[in-house]
């Protein structure tokens, strides 16, 4: 028998924690976009109606502005931002052209059911320069989707409607089950929005896109119930080490 004092003790396993799966997904997409040359900008979660709606060409009458869709705070003086687009408004107002920026974080809508939560996460990107076209937008969107889902994935673009882009599109991918799944919304920045931000829309044009992080995380990890992300259950979180 060898001397006991000479033997190596068992490996000391140190329990590691983990980033939240939503953070992991957000960071993953952010890194893809940083590699393309986008810069990160931040903005507040409590916004004015002007930045959250008016500047984005969302008219006073738009259903999204109703009390049943948007959280208003402090006697309707402000809103909890319903998307990260107002951060881009702040970016357009403060940064020099051309600009390529991404904004991400928590957004809030007055929903709470099996597929919607009152708080969720978005990442949005915008690129403004001379001569930016819908064909350029498609190139970028393909790159993002291929980075996320691989180059074999089938992608389709569908006409859609967002007040702040024109033309607007929604993009689907074909799942293994043969079902088309909506992945993101995008479009050419509406010249009205550029004008609102004092950008000469006759000279410059822009593209914009936005992804819901929970949706991407659910697809990538194959999590079926969106509510699992926010139970703070260690059994669940341990999976994402």
């Amino acid at each position: 028998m060898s001397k006991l004092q000479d033997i190596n003790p068992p490996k000391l396993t140190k329990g590691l924690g983990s980033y939240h799966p939503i953070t992991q997904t957000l960071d993953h997409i952010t890194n893809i976009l940083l590699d393309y040359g986008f810069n990160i900008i931040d903005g507040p979660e409590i916004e004015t109606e002007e930045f959250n709606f008016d500047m984005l060409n969302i008219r006073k009458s738009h259903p999204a502005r109703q009390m049943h869709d948007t959280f208003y705070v402090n006697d309707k003086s402000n809103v909890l931002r319903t998307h990260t687009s107002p951060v881009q408004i702040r970016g357009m107002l403060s940064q020099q052209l051309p600009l390529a920026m991404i904004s991400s974080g928590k957004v809030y809508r007055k929903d709470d059911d099996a597929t919607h939560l009152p708080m969720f996460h978005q990442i949005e990107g915008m690129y403004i320069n001379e001569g930016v076209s819908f064909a350029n937008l498609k190139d970028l969107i393909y790159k993002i989707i291929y980075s996320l889902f691989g180059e074999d994935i089938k992608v389709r673009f569908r006409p859609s409607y967002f007040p702040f882009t024109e033309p607007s599109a929604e993009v689907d991918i074909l799942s293994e089950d043969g079902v088309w799944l909506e992945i993101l919304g995008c479009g050419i920045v509406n010249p009205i929005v550029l004008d609102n931000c004092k950008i000469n829309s006759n000279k410059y044009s822009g593209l914009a896109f936005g992804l819901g992080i929970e949706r991407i995380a659910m697809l990538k990890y194959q999590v079926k119930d969106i509510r699992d992300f926010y139970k703070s259950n260690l059994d669940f979180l341990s999976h994402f080490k």
Partner: protein
Amino acid sequence: MKISYKHLSQRILSSPDIDELSERLFHLGHEHEINDQIFDLEITPNRGDCLSVDGLLRDLGLFYDYQENNKIFEKKIDPFEFEFINNVPNQCKKISFLKIVIDEIPDSYKDFMKSYYDDMPNKKNNFFTDVSNYISYETGQPTHCYDSNKLGNYLLLDNVCDGGNFATLLDKDINLIGDDLVFKNKENNIVNLAGVVGGQNTACNIDTKSVIVECAHFNPESIIGKSIKYDISSDAAHKFERNTDSERHEYILRRFLKIIEDHSTIKEAKILNMSFEDTNPIKIPFDCNKLNKILGTNISDKECKNYLTRLGFEIDSNNIEVPSYRNDIKSINDISEEIARSIGYDNINPKTLLVAKERMKDTNNENRLKQLLIDNGFFEVINNPFTHELNENSIKVDNSLDSNKRFLRTSLKNSLTNNLLYNERRQHDSIKLFEISNIYTNALEEEKRLIGIIASGRVDKNYRDFSKKISNNYVKEILESAKINFKKDFIEIPRTSIDSKLKNHISYIEFEIKPELEINYDAQIKDSYEFKKYVPISEFPSSSRDLSFAVKNPSDLIILEDFLLNLDYESLKNIYIFDYYINHKNQEIKIGFRFTFQSSIETIKDTEINNLMDNIVNQCLKIESVSIPGLEE
């Protein structure tokens, strides 16, 4: 919105099959499902003009020749001497009234009406309301029928504030609160919540033979939100909110009259058309170069004009005239979307985009702080900010989802405490969590980015830390190892204050992550993730067993470890070494393993665990110098 395949295809000259039509509708951006030959469409909110058979056919006109209009009442209609007062012309720029008196009420409907009520999920009401509903389905224009004997010869359109109780024709009373656009009768009673639902007091019934049909164009802003506000399902409101065609009233009412004529003898028909605003068609300069620039395409003038013409636009050499039903078209970018839809979004070739900037260097302190905690076994959690707690800095949510959570949190403490308790209830004996979030107070300019760290129970699940309990010092040492100057004290969370009977100390600290916060931690931060497929966790309770071994020969220790740490039972959720020491006096090694079992389909039974443990014990005892102290032979 539901539209029958049959009702579309019978007006398309080539009679395409349902799959082809479905593909065309997707091409045009009209997402849908098909159930029993009915398209259930999600029309985007800017395309109110497509909320009808006529509207969809206009869009499908890009691909097909089709029968544009149905038969209308061609004869002269006498003027209607009706007193209508419009106090809000900015909210209703055009309105028409048609008075119809019929001889008798039909006891059956012609094929097209019969097909509508047989094929579509709509219930019949009374003759005139049934025609009105059919007209809305066919043309997209809602109309409202008043029983003319109940209404009289007068109608006033006005805005009211807090209009009070209103009995709707849906047998539902609503209390009008705030501003509403309403029609009133001579007695100043509300007879119609404009664009949403009519009143019981002037409603038609199965005996009605004399009606006044109202055909209006309302400003969408006057209608939006009303049906939700009063919890009324209204097809009319859905259409008015998305805008209607103000220039088609004469056609709509003549079509209405034609359907009446198809079913009964008309004794009297009179019409009144009123306009409160001149409307001119929108004209947009035709600029094919600009369109190609927006889209990144290279299509010809001719192709461009062909697409637009097929979609109902009129083009002269310089201008595109927008048809009156296309309320969504105002600029060259809107036109570019029409061209893109026509080409097909998937048929536009991508063009390489080079953003052409260098990647920004990551100087994010927050990521290093996160990684420090994760490397020490902490899990990141994310909570929503809504809370019942009110303090002097709280921001109130005016329209909270839950009346018990009407404020935004000003600290992360309670969220994290709840997370800790949740996991303690799930039998976790080592809980280490953190959350980073923005916090807002009434001083909105004082937005703070906070980190909250909570921990309780065992320090770790290994033989060195198994018996150590988490303390404030434990957390403090982790933070100080990265030389973080957090300048905050730990906050006491007494177990009694959270209704917990456990005795473990709860360590909690919260501090602001300021840009100048220094973190001296050489973190290996990932920039991509594997996205390992998630296997749903079991909701059934787990059960643990401990085994302590004595090992005389060190080489047998390696065999024992290798065997146990590589066990592969479906119900074995976790295994780790919780105890290890060398007993020099007895010249043996003592090592303890903890096994945790859990079933994914039921509460795991003791007998099942015992069988597995017996098997494990037997296997281990086959290793020469391994014994289990206290185990009976």
